């Protein structure tokens, strides 16, 4: 089985095809033998969404001509969620539709398939897309949020454009003791939960263009317009404090602390995890370089960490 699929894909790839076009769908069985790819077909878009979200395939092929929802709109719904961003998407169009001018900068598709299409061409395009998706992204492997390269370039871009923004740096208190006691996979659950809270809150406040990045470990950053950042911080703190107790075993949740070993190996008790946020502002082009923003926020972070409870600290001195 190992090498039947020439793209060196580690397993039989799952391909989901959303298309009402029976002739196009039939091309897949000509292009791939059944043991090469597992192809699932949905003639309509809406019904497929839940399935896509629950069990994402390795490649999603979306026909622009879906009857119930535009292909690009559906792609947008899938791609704006951090956990599904890595899913490669191929859009299917009639070649003459290209003349109408598709806004490719807004379309979050990874590959384009144009009708009329031959089985050979389809096969090549699918192989290429799958292989490309295997290459590393600058995304955090756990949360799939943008990593440091993207974070730095996004901040520098805003600085260069002399745009006002607030940079928030979030990290967890007592995450290490939780990890020590419960193990790293339970720790990963907490990081995934934290990422979802931040993503949903920041997007809820700032709209889909707001930026959230995962620096690594329990450190996250987000960027928002200065006037919106405090509301976001309040919501993140409230949601985190509300939800995090459920990630502890019942006994620890009830007693409100855990017993774990500290850095010197001594057994001691630690409070439940809290989230600390430090926020610096760039107004009127005060900052010149990413490094200044990062240094300012790290200094402020110490202040936020001094409080054992969840809290946020705004940089009022330089504001």
């Amino acid at each position: 089985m190992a090498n039947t699929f020439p793209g060196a894909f580690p397993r039989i790839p799952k391909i989901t095809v959303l298309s009402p076009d029976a002739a196009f769908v039939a091309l897949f069985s000509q292009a791939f033998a059944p043991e090469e790819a597992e192809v699932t077909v949905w003639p309509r878009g809406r019904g497929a969404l839940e399935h896509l979200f629950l069990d994402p395939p390795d490649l999603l092929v979306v026909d622009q001509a879906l009857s119930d929802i535009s292909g690009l709109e559906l792609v947008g719904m899938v791609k704006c969620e951090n956990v599904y961003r890595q899913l490669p998407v191929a859009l299917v169009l009639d070649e003459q539709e290209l003349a109408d001018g598709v806004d490719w900068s807004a379309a979050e598709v990874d590959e384009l398939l144009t009708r009329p299409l031959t089985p050979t061409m389809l096969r090549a395009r699918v192989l290429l897309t799958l292989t490309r998706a295997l290459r590393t992204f600058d995304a955090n492997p756990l949360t799939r949020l943008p990593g440091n390269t993207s974070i730095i370039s996004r901040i520098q871009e805003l600085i260069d454009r002399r745009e006002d923004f607030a940079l928030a740096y979030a990290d967890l208190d007592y995450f290490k003791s939780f990890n020590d006691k419960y193990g790293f996979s339970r720790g990963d659950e907490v990081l995934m939960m934290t990422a979802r809270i931040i993503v949903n809150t920041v997007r809820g406040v700032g709209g889909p263009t707001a930026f959230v990045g995962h620096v690594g470990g329990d450190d996250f950053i987000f960027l928002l317009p200065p006037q919106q950042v405090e509301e976001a911080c309040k919501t993140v703190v409230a949601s985190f404090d509300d939800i995090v107790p459920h990630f502890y075993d019942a006994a620890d949740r009830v007693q409100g602390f855990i017993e774990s070993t500290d850095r010197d190996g001594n057994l001691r008790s630690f409070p439940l995890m809290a989230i600390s946020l430090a926020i610096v502002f760039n107004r009127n082009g005060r900052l010149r370089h990413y490094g200044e923003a990062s240094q300012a926020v790290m200094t402020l972070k110490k202040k936020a960490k001094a409080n054992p409870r969840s809290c946020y600290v705004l940089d009022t001195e330089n504001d």
Partner: protein
Amino acid sequence: MTRDLRTERKGRILAVRDLPTLPNVLEEVTRLVERADSSTEEVAKLISMDQVLSAKVLKMVNSPVYGFSGRISTIQHALVLLGFNVLRSIIVSTSVFEVMTENMVGLWEHSLGCAMACGELARMLDFKDAEEYAVAGLLHDLGKVVATVQLPDLKPEIERVVAERDLYYLEAEREVLGFGHDRINAWLADYWKLPPNIKEGLSYHHKPHLAQLYPEMACVVHVGDFIVRVFEYGFSGDVGVPYLQPEAVKILNLTPAQFEILLDHMCDQYMELVAGQSS
């Protein structure tokens, strides 16, 4: 019943993809979600009134894709973690069954009434996260819904056995299907990776004293189910009221005085609900 037939039916139950949901809740949720100033609490409250949407939301947030399976058991937390975008997608992909049987409409009211009683009881007993008890109450008969959707041919047979042989719905299910909705609930809870406390509430509400891990949860749902049947709010599939397990009252340390207050409260709440629906 042969093992093969049973396995085949379990397979058909778990092939469940599209559960029906109530159209009016769907519309209201959509409207609320699309309004910029709506709060998570408002949306959670609405979702909590629909057993199918609630189940879908909990199933989604506990799916391995999000990376914290089995941790989230309240609708409000689920909405914070899923976000409105995913919620909207769940709603648009929820296919609404145009024709809802009378039985299922009554079952929805029965479930809602049970959820209210469970929440009230949990608050009265000062249990933490009373909302989770309400969720279990709301979903306690989900197995009945899924069975009628997935095995529609067997539903008239169950109803016939209930009517002709004067059996409880659960007994008739066991007779006809080979298993009851409590068993279906356990399968669904595993299949959807719902948290263990919700699973026990769903699968042990008819035999709460046998629940191993979360007996309080199972007992609260048992008592909630009993209360909503006493007041005949909604329709569970049975005409009568089943036996209230004395062990459940004992495990919960529920005094007769508390029980009386609870009955009074629930009577008022159901009256209010009926008045609200007819106005």
